[in-house]
């Protein structure tokens, strides 16, 4: 066993873990902000808006993340208009491509989660808000959003775990997050067992922490839903 190699390279794993967390948090934060208005649009009375958002979520939920990542990272270079644009230094960076792909992907799932929660909202709550004379904006801010977020907390928790795990794909486009670090160590030292087991253990700890955080959040903010069921 060559665990001393792992001990010597713990610094690399720490860097990798930092990047993994950064990718997860950045993608989730941007996707969270995008998903709230998209979820409202997904349930809007405007059929064009509803179906356009529906088509977006179907495409991004119906294709593998790996395909989406390669399509954006390798695929965009096919078009000379993009290669020659001023945005190219930005678009050719793996970090930008990875975050853009993750955001597009997880926004599709999160939008459907939020929109589904919105559909389960008792109509009486919205009618009451209308009867109080709330404007559509106040209604969204005070009634729809809080109800939507608390009701989707459990499913959203799963989605954040999925996103954390999906960041491992960033290693396929040269980024050195936890999986990328593990892969490099296997190649440099020619040991196959310890590096990946270490990576798996890091992900396991991160996942369990995330699950615990969501359980606490659920007890704090979604407790009223539990009480109603009991």
């Amino acid at each position, binding site marked *: 066993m060559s665990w001393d190699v792992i001990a010597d390279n713990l610094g690399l794993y720490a860097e990798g873990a930092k990047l993994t967390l950064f990718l997860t948090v950045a993608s989730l934060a941007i996707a969270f902000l995008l998903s709230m208005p998209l979820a409202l649009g997904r349930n809007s009375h405007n059929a064009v808006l509803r179906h356009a958002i529906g088509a977006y979520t179907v495409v991004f939920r119906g294709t593998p993340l790996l395909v989406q990542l390669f399509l954006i990272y*390798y695929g965009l270079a096919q078009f000379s208009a993009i290669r020659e644009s001023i945005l190219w230094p930005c678009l050719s960076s793996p970090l930008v491509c990875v975050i853009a792909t993750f955001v597009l992907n997880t926004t599709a799932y999160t939008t459907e989660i939020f929109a589904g929660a919105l559909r389960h909202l008792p109509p009486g709550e919205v009618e009451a808000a209308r009867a109080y004379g709330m404007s559509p904006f106040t209604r969204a801010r005070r009634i729809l959003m809080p109800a939507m977020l608390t009701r989707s907390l459990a499913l959203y928790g799963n989605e954040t775990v999925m996103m954390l795990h999906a960041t491992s794909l960033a290693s396929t486009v040269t980024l050195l997050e936890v999986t990328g670090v593990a892969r490099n160590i296997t190649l440099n030292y020619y040991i196959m067992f310890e590096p990946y087991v270490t990576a798996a253990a890091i992900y396991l700890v991160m996942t369990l922490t995330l699950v615990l955080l969501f359980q606490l959040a659920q007890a704090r903010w979604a407790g009223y839903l539990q009480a109603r069921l009991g």
Partner: protein
Amino acid sequence: MLGGYVASILAAGWITLSLALVSLLLAVLIGIAAALAKLSHSRTLRIIAGTYTSLVRGIPDLVMMLLVFYSLPAILNQKAQDLGWNVYIEFSPFVAGAATLGLIFGAYMTETFRGALMNIPKGQLEAAQAYGLTRFRIFWRILLPQMARLALPGFTNNWLVLAKATALVSLLGLPDVMFRAKGAAEATAQPFTFYLLAGGFYLAITAISLFALSLVARRYEVGVKELAR
């Protein structure tokens, strides 16, 4: 010329599909066994099944796949060498991929099947026991048919995620749709076109599966709707 690449990508669809179906079969078998273990009276079985599902769901698919493909043979060969055996173990990408996906989605199926089994009315089990059916018969005649109906929505979801997850096995070198698309993308310098084609293939699998499974769901719900009326 491009037509040749398109044909080779679509022909690789069989590899993707057979990998997905073999993995699904494994996942269903593991799922049923682990769901029964989770609901059994034996504490040991419950702990084993619980550890399995939480361990598997805490590790990314890709890392799990690398563990099975690279780490597992490495440790097995090490052990064989220590014992003085002259063998060299290596998994093909297909075997490693199917084993990994079976193991991962077995854990998701476990939760789906466990939920379904718990929703079968208890009286039916008691009636079956009162009729003196053996445990296997109870499972085969009472539990399994109803579990299939109750588990269908979760099963559909797991299958769709599994079918997409097969794309990861291309990273191990399995010549599936994704692998061929990468080859074509690199050979023709038209990556967008060929990755888009691969995306279209997976989207088609999703669409066809959703349609087929909605027909199955309708078939399973025939009796239930009549009873409810």
